[in-house]
């Protein structure tokens, strides 16, 4: 994925323009693990929207696997997002009332062909990879925070995405569990050859990345990988 001179501006009710992102350049390749750190309100969510093909830049170019995303229609972007981008959220966002296995199956409902028809088998394999095969039939509210995030990771990876976007993935976990979850996410992403972009304000999470950027007032700059704080 590459962003070249990407800006994102919104018009406020008083007709003034708010520049959320200013001239963002970023290139992420298969197997990369990149962290983007920044304070609240610096434009992290907007950047996440763009990276997840959920929004389009006001100006600049966004390319995904060589395709200019701006030329794709909404539904084409949705199909590309489903097949190539996996999301891991801070609050896990598992669907309530559905078992761990059903949650992991959910993205496969939007797949075609073998991925759809073999959805149960693929989901079980993925749960096995995150070490939760024995809890496949358990409802989310019966799982610990760490287990819920592992289910969320399995769900994000089950369609074999080329890009994994992790939005504050350890924000709702204690330090030890957060470290374990991040290690798992890094391992599974590396094994599958997907690029991993972690958006965080946690230096311990950013410390696991192989490249680090700082987002400040809409401007993205290269930053040194922080040294993790010992638990």
């Amino acid at each position: 994925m590459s962003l070249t001179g990407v800006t994102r501006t919104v018009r406020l009710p008083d007709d003034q323009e708010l520049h959320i992102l200013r001239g963002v350049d970023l290139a992420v390749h298969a197997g990369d693990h990149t962290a983007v750190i920044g304070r609240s309100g610096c434009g992290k969510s907007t950047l996440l929207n763009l990276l997840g093909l959920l929004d389009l830049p006001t100006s600049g170019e966004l390319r995904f696997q060589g395709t200019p995303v701006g030329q794709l229609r909404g539904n084409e972007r949705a199909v590309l997002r489903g097949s190539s981008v996996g999301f891991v959220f801070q609050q896990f966002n598992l669907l309530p009332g559905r078992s761990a296995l059903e949650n992991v199956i959910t993205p496969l409902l939007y797949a075609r062909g073998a991925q759809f028809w073999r959805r149960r088998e693929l989901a079980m394999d993925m749960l096995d990879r995150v070490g939760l095969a024995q809890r496949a039939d358990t409802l989310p509210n019966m799982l610990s925070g760490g287990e819920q995030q592992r289910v969320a990771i399995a769900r994000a990876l089950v369609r074999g995405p080329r890009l994994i976007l992790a939005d504050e993935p350890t924000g709702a976990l204690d330090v030890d569990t957060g470290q374990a979850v991040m290690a798992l996410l890094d391992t599974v992403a590396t094994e599958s050859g997907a690029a991993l972009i972690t958006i965080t304000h946690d230096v311990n999470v950013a410390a696991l990345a192989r490249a680090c950027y700082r987002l400040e007032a809409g401007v993205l700059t290269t930053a040194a990988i922080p040294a993790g704080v010992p638990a």
Partner: protein
Amino acid sequence: MTGVVSALVEAWQELRINKTRILLALVGVALSVAALTSVVGVGDLAREGFKADSERNGGRSATLAIGVYGPSQPDPQKLEGAYRGIIERYGITYFSHAAQAQLSFQFPRGVQPVQLQVVDPGYGVIHRLDLSQGGWFAANDEERLAPALVVSESFYNAAGRPNLATSPKIAMAGDQKTTAVIIGVVPDPYPESPPSAYMLTGAAERSGVTAGGAAGPGQQFKIWVQDEQAAALKAAITSDLEQQFPGMQAAVDRSDYASYGDPFAPVQLAVGGVAGLVLLLGAVGMLNISMVTVRYRVREIGIRRSFGATSRRIFVGVMMESVVATAVAGVVGVMIAVAVVKNPWIESKVGRGLTEYPPFPVDAALLGLGAAVLVGALAGAIPAVVAVRVKVIDAIRF
């Protein structure tokens, strides 16, 4: 193929997970549809009852009642000839004389006066008379030595409900001491109505019940014609008769219920209005539940969008959930309505005058189902649009 199956799998998951909420929504819609369908079904039954009653009194649409009036009585034989001429000239299949007379019969509990209708075999068809027992007059019943009678239920009860297979006889009180044979029984026109009976014109003349034949006082001649021919035939027959009876006035008038337009139109309008109101209430209730549901599902919709669900898929999903739910509720509602409308007590109260109750009206069932699906589509469309407009990341952080 994959898209359809996956949409169904998703819908089934939704149904399973949200069964309580969906069930609550279904109850409201099912009751609305039941009310709507019942109103239409009961209206239909009432209409059939009213129609049967009207046809029994005034004849089917279009029945023309013909008479010739003047300063003096027209010559009976000439008038009869004129009626025969009308039948032949215009190819009339069903016709009947109609006169009323009072006659006393010797019942087991004594002599009792009976209202007698003197008619021809065609009268039964023209007035759509349904018999509860026995049969209506056949053409050769005129030749019976003992006049045939079709009697009302109250007459039949007063006569002791004899077995019609034994050709039960009943004496006509009077100078001639004639005996009549009961061949059929018609339901009473209204509860506890006095005994009445039908007798053929020829038999009544021979028995001295009526005098004067076709031109007798109060005599009418009725013919049943096609609706669209009624106006033209009325003019033609009036002209024919006035030419044949100079100085006299021919009266050819429709006597059926539909002669002044559709009398059911106001009833239908009222029923339609009530049904529309019920439907509107159902739609508002369903819309309310759907809107709350979508608000409740904003985060879930956002998550699904992040997995690659297209806006069309989200729209169809929310819409289908509503339509499928209301369609199921519609089936349940129609079943409740059938149980209500076909309830014997309701049928007897609403369908007065009917000997056989009509089957549950298919149009009412289709209207109920159609209304349910329409309500589902309308109540699903707005939440579906709201669902499509959900901003994914905002929804996830909702």
